[in-house]
């Protein structure tokens, strides 16, 4: 543990004396600033410790320490010395709350779908590139190195985001495709939604090669991801991607639909 925490714990009276004095001062007293500065300085190591817990998420440490300090200031102002609570115990959730709020505002906690979607797009692109370069699917560490994020973030983008937020539609899009403009699902929906084409489609689907038919059904009827389909069918994800694209192309051609401008 750091020397600062030892000092803090060795002399709990220093902090609590400062807080007690601060608490008694009237609003606007110039002495308040001095006391607050001393308290902030004394507890900065706690802020840095907590901020470091959130590093590795593409968020500069300085920013995290700064928002954490806001939490510390709030804790200093709101702390009631009479309640007999240890200040660091009181301040920790306040500081963490401020850091979390920062991630929420800049789009990590609440906007998991968006963030996951962005990272998903990046991961998918890198996955396609690396698959081609390596002649096999990349490992998590290879992906992480390529797109310069932590391995945890990659694992989350691949998997945990789904648990948090349901499957973002974009996950279902083919790797490397520019997702927002042309979600593959949207393209297919337009066809499926037209009732008069359904009968036609049924016949066309029946004529597809078995492998393409099975994969299209898994993809768009069972709503499986390409990776899941790859596991079920026993081929690579890239192969699934190709079969989906080929199957869709065949469907469109058979139905006389125009190719979308992808």
């Amino acid at each position, binding site marked *: 543990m750091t020397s600062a925490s030892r000092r803090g714990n060795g002399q709990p009276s220093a902090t609590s004396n400062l807080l007690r004095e601060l608490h008694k001062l009237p609003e606007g007293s110039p002495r308040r600033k001095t006391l607050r500065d001393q308290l902030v300085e004394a507890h900065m190591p*706690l802020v840095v410790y*907590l901020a470091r*817990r959130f590093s590795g998420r593409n968020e500069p440490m300085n920013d995290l320490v700064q928002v954490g300090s806001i939490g510390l200031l709030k804790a200093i102002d709101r702390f009631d010395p009479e309640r007999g609570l240890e200040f*660091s115990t009181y301040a920790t959730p306040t500081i963490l709350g401020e850091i979390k709020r920062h991630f929420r505002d800049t789009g990590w906690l609440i906007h998991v779908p968006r963030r996951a979607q962005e990272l998903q797009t990046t991961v998918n692109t890198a996955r396609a590139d690396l698959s081609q370069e390596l002649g096999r699917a990349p490992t998590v560490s290879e992906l992480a190195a390529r797109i310069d994020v932590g391995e945890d973030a990659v*694992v989350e983008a691949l998997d945990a985001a789904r*648990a948090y937020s349901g499957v973002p539609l974009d996950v279902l899009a083919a790797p490397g495709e520019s997702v927002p403009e042309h979600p593959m699902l949207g393209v297919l929906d337009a066809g499926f939604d037209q009732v008069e084409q359904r009968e036609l489609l049924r016949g066309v689907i029946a004529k597809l090669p078995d492998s393409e038919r099975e994969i299209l059904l898994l993809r768009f009827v069972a709503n499986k991801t390409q990776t899941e389909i790859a596991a079920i069918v026993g081929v690579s994800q890239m192969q699934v991607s190709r079969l989906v694209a080929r199957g869709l192309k065949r469907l469109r051609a058979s139905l006389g639909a125009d190719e979308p401008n992808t």
Partner: protein
Amino acid sequence: MNPASQRLNGDVVEVRVPADVVYVSTLRLTAAALAARCELTIDDIEDLRLAVDEACALLLPHASPGSPLEARFELAYGRLDVQATITSEEGARLDRTGFAWTVLGALAAPVNVTQDDGHITIALTKHREDTAQ
């Protein structure tokens, strides 16, 4: 409460990894995945991930070389109980004066430590915010 989360009440998941810092992320991800099943909120899951980090930071320095770190998760709707146990030298004591301990206490409640028989266990419970106590 949806039927899926009713079914998980009392389910127990046990994970045993080498007591080495490189496996902390495995426990963290396991905890997060299970917490999602328990329908804890995203904020709760975030807290839990940090709490697992802190618990491991407290335990690992005391782990005997080559011994495992055992984690036990008990699932319930809106609640995840976590126990992390290491094998240690007789008489090893957790550092309860540092940041890690303070932070752990702030992130999960209650936190209990048992130390006996050359084992140290940290048990913590994460409640979903709106179902706490």
